[in-house]
């Protein structure tokens, strides 16, 4: 592990830029921090570099804690969006600056500078000044300068943001190749999902100061963990589940108002009616090169954008205002409504893990069954059990182990009880669960929450985060809370499993 970020938060005035973020980056990987502006990606990068100091949490570099280490001592390479080359120095002096500061012998500096000039393909330009180079060349000098002192980590803040499209494209491929040659752990910030997909082996998707998902480009595209990731990475149609195309072919959800996500290339278009096909009118045709974008209007006025290969488009001979028939190939939904009630297991899309919250001993058996079922169905693991009955914790864990549901000692427990009453208790516990589950990129399934405010809370939580929570036996707890409240002290034990996202 090369970079470890542990529960790091950073606030600027009243703006929470980075909110309890944990992240682990393996040595030698090429990672993109991807997110819209204000998502905290640049701040996270600057926290790793030491240009900003976190309000809380820890930062480790190559196995050593570096949270309060000065930037100078961290031995990192940093590349700025606007190059930040030293204007009054030649390219050679720029590249050699870091080594000179470290008092390296002159001959060695000269040799290393020549090496780097060759690496960034700028031989012969060493005696020029930055102002005499093009934008792309300048950024390559900035890279060479950052690499000169053989940094532990290379950090790039929107490195191609100030360049024009063509140069940007060239530099992306070039950076990819450079990383194959140099192998230094590299983290770069970008708001361009295409750039992240093209350059990085791992993508960290950020939104509102938190990490939404960590995964390979294929993972974040094919198995987005939340509605945010789904809509941020690649184009998507967001439709109410009442839309005709879903009603016709079993994608229909049970509760109203939930949203269904449909990628434009997952729309099947045919010119003749058939089973499962919904009629639509062609509104607009746009040629995007090898793909054609067709805007369709359904009979209930929903607009659906479809992408199809040019070949298929020519085959169908689609004209504007023509009537066609469409169906979805594959859809995704993240809504709570979609999951609640019997049979919810069948409808769960991608769940990366299940956390179970047990509020008392009475119902744990069925709750656990449900949790395991969900986990099995979605190929995820049961990652943790929260037990909110302090008296019964050891007992439950023992029983679970006896029944062979748990491997011994594998599951952490969280004991907690609050003195204020049911809502506070539940909310607090859920906050903790939300916190830890999201940090770990897990989903949690909810079943038996009866109280309306809590349900709203979880619903809101899910619509934001795309997570699923299982809580069992909440009602039974209320009855017992009176007697518990006076006896129990607040105990917290942080689970160790799945605490960091692995990259």
């Amino acid at each position, binding site marked *: 592990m090369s970079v470890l970020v542990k529960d790091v938060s950073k606030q600027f005035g009243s703006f929470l830029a980075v909110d309890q973020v944990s992240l682990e980056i393996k040595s030698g990987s090429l990672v993109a921090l991807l997110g819209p502006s204000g998502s905290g990606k640049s701040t996270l990068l600057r926290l790793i570099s030491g240009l900003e100091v976190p309000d809380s949490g820890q930062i480790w570099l190559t196995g050593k804690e570096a949270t309060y280490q000065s930037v100078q*001592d961290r031995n990192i390479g940093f590349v*700025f969006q606007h190059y930040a080359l*030293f204007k009054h120095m030649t390219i050679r002096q720029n590249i050699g600056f870091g080594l000179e500061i470290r008092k390296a012998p002159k001959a060695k500096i000269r040799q290393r500078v020549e090496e780097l000039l060759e690496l960034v393909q700028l031989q012969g330009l060493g005696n020029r*000044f930055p102002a*005499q180079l093009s934008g792309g060349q300048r950024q390559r000098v900035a890279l060479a300068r950052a690499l000169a*002192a053989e940094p532990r980590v290379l950090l790039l803040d929107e490195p191609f943001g100030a360049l024009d499209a063509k140069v940007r494209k060239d530099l992306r491929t070039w950076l990819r190749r450079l990383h194959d040659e140099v192998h230094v752990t590299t983290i770069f910030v970008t708001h361009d999902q295409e750039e992240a997909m093209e350059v990085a082996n791992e993508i960290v998707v950020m939104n509102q100061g938190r990490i939404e998902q960590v995964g390979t480009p294929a993972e974040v595209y094919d198995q987005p963990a939340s509605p945010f990731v789904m809509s941020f990475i690649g184009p998507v149609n967001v439709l109410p589940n009442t839309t005709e195309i879903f009603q016709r072919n079993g994608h229909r959800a049970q509760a109203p108002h939930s949203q269904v996500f449909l990628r434009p290339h997952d729309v099947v278009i045919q010119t003749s009616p058939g089973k499962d096909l919904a009629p639509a009118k062609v509104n607009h045709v746009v040629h995007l090169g090898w793909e054609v974008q067709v805007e369709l209007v359904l009979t209930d006025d929903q607009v659906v954008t479809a992408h199809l290969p040019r070949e298929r488009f020519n085959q169908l001979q689609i004209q504007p205002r023509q009537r066609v028939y469409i169906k979805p190939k594959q859809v995704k939904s993240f809504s709570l409504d979609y999951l609640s009630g019997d049979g919810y297991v069948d409808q769960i899309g991608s769940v990366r893990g299940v956390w179970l919250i047990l509020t008392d001993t009475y119902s744990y058996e069925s709750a656990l069954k449900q949790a395991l079922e969900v986990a099995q169905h979605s190929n995820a693991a049961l990652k943790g059990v929260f037990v909110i009955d302090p008296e019964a914790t050891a007992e439950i864990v023992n029983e679970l182990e006896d029944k062979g549901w748990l491997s011994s000692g594998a599951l952490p427990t969280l004991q907690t009880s609050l003195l204020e009453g049911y809502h506070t208790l539940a909310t607090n516990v859920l906050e903790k669960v939300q916190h830890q589950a999201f940090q770990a990129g897990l989903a949690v399934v909810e079943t038996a929450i009866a109280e309306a405010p809590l349900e709203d809370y979880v619903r809101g939580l899910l619509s934001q985060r795309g997570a699923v929570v299982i809580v069992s036996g909440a009602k039974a707890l209320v009855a017992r809370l009176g007697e518990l409240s006076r006896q129990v002290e607040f105990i917290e034990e942080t689970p160790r499993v799945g605490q960091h996202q692995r990259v």
Partner: protein
Amino acid sequence: MSSNLVGQAPKPMSARKRLFGKERDWPKAALIGGAIAYLFLVLFIPTLNIFIQAFSEGVGPFLDNLTDPAFTHALKLTVLIALIVVPLNTVFGLCAAWAITRHKFPGRAFVISLLDVPFAVSPVVVGLMIVLLYGRNGWFDPLLKATDIKIIFAFPGMVLATAFIAMPFVAREVIPVLEEAGTDQEQAARTLGASDWQIFWRITLPNIRWGLLYGVILTNARAMGEFGAVAVVSGNIARKTQTLTLFVEDAYKQYQTQAAFSAAVLLAGLAAVTLVLKEILEYKTKIREVE
């Protein structure tokens, strides 16, 4: 009807354009002529007159005037004051500019406007303020009497007055340059391992050097040319507290017109050197910007 209009439109337009072009030459010529005439009247003729008067009786008397002890003393004093005030104000101006551009602190706007006070206040008033503070019955009078330090009618007072008058130039010149340079390069140097001290000498200073030098030159010009404040504070005692500007005035009042103009020539020479330096700097800065 409308198609007709469209067809005919270009003709009158271009005719009118030509007319406008000719008309515009008129005020242009008038303005340029006026400006040149004004410059001649206000700047060039008086300056020329200084030289004519100084050399009206030949080079010999001019050189005699320059070796007059009262004159040499005034020259020494002027240079000495400048030698103290310029470095002092340069260091202060740098610190102020750095604090203002690199930090957000309460009262920042107030400090910026405070920098302009020496521009706004008349030099004579500045002199008076210093007299009221350090003179007889002034605030610090008891302290000065007890320690036997003389400020008014003495060298320290003249330095104080000149320092006050010439204070804003360095900060005023450096602030925009520092702001334009931004913090990116400094941060980059930090990530490369440079200490704050190394960053200042190797990154910040080279980036602002032309602005800083320009500020220093302006400070120097102001320090050497200051009259009003120094006149009030110094008491204008020949061979004691007389600077070059005071010497010029004194000589003129005593009908030693030639001596006055000789000194004026030297002051003008100093000013010319300053101007040339300033022009060179501006030229160099421009080249760098084009690069």
